[in-house]
C-alpha cells in the first residue's frame, strides 16, 4: 500500500520535473558514467600498450575507414556494410521473423489448451535445454551450408524464448475476459486474436526482446563456419590475419547493432502497448 502510493508519488514527481532538471539527471545517470568509462579505457590502453587492446579512439577511427569510406554511389558505405552487415541483418531478421511467428503460434496452442500443454511440456523442457548452438552441426548436415540453413538455425534457436513467453502470457489471460467475449458472441478466432493475443502481448514482447538478442548471437555463430560473407565471417578472417584492430571494430559494430535492435523492439513495444501502460497507471 505505502509502496504503491510512493510509486505514484515518484511518478508524479518525475512528470512535474522541469526539463533542464530531467536533462541533468539523464547526463548524471547515463552519459556521465559512459564518458568516464570510455576515457578510462582510452587512458588505460595508451599507458599500458597492448596489441590485443587497442585504444577506443583508434577503434572508432578504424570504424570510419572500414565502414564509411566507400564510393559516393553507395552513399559512402563500404562493402563491409553493404555486403557483410547487410547479409547478417538479412539472416537475422528473416530468422527472427520466422522463429517468432512459429513461436507465437505454438505458444498460443500450448497456452490455450491444458491438454496440449501437458502433451508438450516434457518435450519443450528437454529441447530448450539443449544449447541452440549445439544443434548447428545438425542443421549443417541436414540443410547444407547456405543461407537457408542459417535462417532455419536462427529461427529454431529464437523460437524457444517466444514459445515459453507466449504460452505463459496466454495461459495467464483472465478467464472472465474470454467468457465476456463469448457472451458478446465474438467468434472463436475473434476471441483468440482480439482478446487473448492482446492480453498476452506484454509477455510476448518480453520473449521477443530476449529473442532478438539471441538472433544476433546465433547469426554470428552460424557465420563462423562455411560462410562467404557476414559479420561472423569477417571476424574469423580478421582472426586468421591477426587484424586485431579490425576485429575490435567489428565487435564495436556488433555492440551498436545489439543496442539498436533492442531499442527498435522497445520502440515497437512502446507503440503497441500504450493501452497496457495506461491501464496499469490507472489501476
Amino acid at each position, binding site marked *: 500500500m505505502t509502496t504503491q502510493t510512493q510509486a505514484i508519488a515518484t511518478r508524479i514527481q518525475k512528470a512535474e520535473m522541469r526539463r533542464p532538471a530531467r536533462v541533468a539527471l539523464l547526463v*548524471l*545517470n*547515463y*552519459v556521465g*558514467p*559512459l564518458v568516464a*568509462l570510455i576515457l578510462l579505457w582510452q587512458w588505460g590502453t595508451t599507458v599500458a600498450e597492448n596489441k*590485443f587492446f587497442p585504444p577506443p579512439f583508434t577503434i572508432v577511427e578504424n570504424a570510419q575507414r572500414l565502414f564509411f569510406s566507400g564510393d559516393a554511389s553507395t552513399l559512402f558505405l563500404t562493402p563491409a556494410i553493404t555486403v557483410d552487415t547487410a547479409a547478417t541483418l538479412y539472416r537475422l531478421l528473416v530468422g527472427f521473423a520466422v522463429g517468432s511467428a512459429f513461436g507465437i503460434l505454438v505458444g498460443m496452442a500450448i497456452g490455450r489448451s491444458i491438454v496440449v500443454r*501437458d*502433451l*508438450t*511440456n*516434457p*518435450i519443450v*523442457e*528437454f*529441447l*530448450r*535445454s*539443449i*544449447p*541452440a*548452438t*549445439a*544443434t*548447428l*552441426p*545438425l542443421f*549443417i*548436415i*541436414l540443410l547444407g551450408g547456405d543461407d537457408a540453413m542459417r535462417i532455419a538455425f536462427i529461427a529454431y534457436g529464437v523460437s*524457444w*524464448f517466444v514459445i*515459453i*513467453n507466449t504460452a505463459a502470457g496466454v495461459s495467464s489471460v483472465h478467464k472472465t475476459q474470454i467468457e465476456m467475449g463469448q457472451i458478446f458472441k465474438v467468434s472463436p478466432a475473434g476471441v483468440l486474436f482480439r482478446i487473448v493475443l492482446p492480453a498476452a502481448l506484454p*509477455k510476448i514482447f518480453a*520473449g521477443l526482446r*530476449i529473442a532478438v*538478442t539471441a538472433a*544476433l*548471437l546465433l547469426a*554470428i*555463430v552460424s557465420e*563462423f*563456419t562455411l560462410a562467404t560473407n557476414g559479420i561472423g565471417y569477417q*571476424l*574469423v578472417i*580478421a*582472426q586468421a590475419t*591477426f587484424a*586485431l584492430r579490425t*576485429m*575490435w571494430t*567489428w*565487435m564495436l559494430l*556488433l*555492440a551498436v547493432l*545489439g*543496442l539498436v535492435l*533492442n531499442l527498435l523492439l522497445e520502440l515497437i513495444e512502446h507503440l503497441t502497448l500504450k493501452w497496457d501502460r495506461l491501464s496499469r497507471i490507472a489501476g
Partner: protein
Amino acid sequence: MTTTAPPAAPPQPSAPAPRRRARTARPKTRSIVLGVAGILGLAIIIEIVSRLGIVSEVYLPHFSSVIAQMVLIFGDTGFLYDLWVTLLTWFIGLTLSTIVAVPVGILLGLSPVTYRGARAPIELVRTMPAVALIPLVMLALGQTLEMQIVIAMYAAVWPILFNTMYGVRGVDPKAKDMARVFGVSRAGVIGRVVIPSAGPFVATGIRISSSIVLIVVITIGILAGGSDGLGAYIAEQRAIGLASAIVKMYAAILVTGLLGLAINSILGWAERRWLGWDSTTRNDA
C-alpha cells in the same frame, strides 16, 4: 527463461492445503500420462520420418538407434573425457563469475548513486554477444581452458551482477535502520541484513548464469573445434561424417540437453531447499 526471474511461488502453508492437494492429485497423474504420451508420440513420428527415407539414413539416422547410442556413448572413454572437461569448465566458469560478480554487485547496489551510474555502462558492454569475443580471446590465449573460462565469464557475470545489485537495492531500509538502532556495525548490517535478504536474487542470477556458461562452453567447442569438451566432440563427429559418427553426433546433442536439464533442476532444487523461506515471508507483507 530469463524473464521469469523469481522462483515459482511455493504452496501456501495455510489451513486448506491438504484439501487442495487431494484435489490436484488427479490432474497431476493426468499430466504425467499425457507428458509420456507426448514423448512417445513424437518418438514414433520421428522414427517413421527417419525410416521413410526422405532424408538419407546417414544424415538422419533412425531415432531408435540414436536413443540406443545415447546409452552406448557412455562406454566411450573419449566421450566421457569430453563430458568431464565440459563439466569442469562449467564449474570453474560459474564459480569464478560468482566470486567476481557478487561482491561488485553488493558494492554497486549499496548506494543509489553507484547503482544508477553503473547501469548504462553495463548495459552497453553486455550488448556485445560473448561469441564475438571468441576470435579475439583465442588469439590472445590460444585453445586453452583459460580461453573458454574468460569467454564464459564475460557472458555469465552480468546476470549475477544485475540480480545482486537489484537484490541489494531492494533491501527493506527499515530492516537496515532497525539493525543500526540495535548497535550493529556497518559491516554487520551488510553481513546480517543486506546479504541474507539479497540472497534469493543472487541465487536466481547464478541459476540463469549456470545455463549461460554451459551454452558458451559448448558453443566454443563447436566453433573452435580441436579443443576438448562436448561441443568439440559434436563438431568432430560431424567432421568425420560417417554414418556411425553422425549417430554419435545426434546422441551427444541430446546428452547436452540432459546436462542442461540436470544443471537447471539441481540449482532450482537447491534454491527452493535453502532459500525457500524468501517468497513465503515476502507474501505476508
